[in-house]
């Protein structure tokens, strides 16, 4: 029962063209850059192959594929090797870009595609829950962001107001 097994299954799913591209996000994605933080699920961002006549994106092909390989559907999740996995379609320009620019990391011989730290941080800023703010602070404290790249992302995706609010609330007067 390990997350490495889940990554192998998802690599195979991409190789079998069920999804066009995947990348790990959320707390597990952040763990590639930061210290591990307890999480109960795994967020996988996906782009689907373009199919003429199919305007609506459905997770059905993913669910069908994985249930024939031992996955169990539980609500919005597919449980794989004991991990609830949530598949999130790229529905915003920020996530589309994040998926395109995701990087491949070697995990003891298994390739794992993961969002860049700057995209993970920008998505956390955009999502804006308390735990997302905490993650963004972790990235900043760990100096795990390329400041120029992150600032460009914030500007490009209209997150400047959110950043200024975050900065006032959590960063000003903290150094």
């Amino acid at each position, binding site marked *: *029962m*390990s*997350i*490495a097994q889940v990554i192998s299954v998802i690599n195979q799913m991409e190789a079998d063209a069920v999804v066009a591209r995947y990348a790990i996000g959320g707390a*597990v994605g952040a763990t590639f850059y930061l210290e*591990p933080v*307890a*999480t109960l699920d795994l967020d996988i961002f996906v782009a689907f192959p373009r199919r003429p006549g199919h305007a609506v994106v459905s997770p059905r092909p993913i669910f069908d594929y994985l249930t024939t390989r031992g996955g169990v559907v539980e609500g919005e999740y597919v449980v794989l090797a004991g991990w609830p996995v949530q598949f999130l379609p790229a529905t915003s320009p920020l996530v589309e870009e994040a998926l395109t620019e995701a990087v491949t990391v070697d995990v003891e011989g298994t390739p*794992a595609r993961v969002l860049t730290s700057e995209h993970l941080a920008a998505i956390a800023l955009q999502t804006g829950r308390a735990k997302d703010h905490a993650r963004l602070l972790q990235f900043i404290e760990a100096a795990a962001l390329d400041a120029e790249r992150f600032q460009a992302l914030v500007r490009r995706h209209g997150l400047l107001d959110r950043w200024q609010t975050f900065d006032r609330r959590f960063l000003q007067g903290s150094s």
Partner: protein
Amino acid sequence: MTFDLQRILESKRALRRSLAQRPVAEKLALLDVLRERTRAIRAAARRAETMARESSSKDRAQLRNF
């Protein structure tokens, strides 16, 4: 061992840095362990909540019959 808060905080930061610098495979394996622990803690908290609810309703019933 010390009770100097500044040193405690610095040692926490150092631990986080050293965890962050471990190989990815090792960190992912730690996630598996952390997840199991979180599940166990949540299950224990739920059991404690249920027991507290049951005991409080038993107390109420006893008081009604008093």
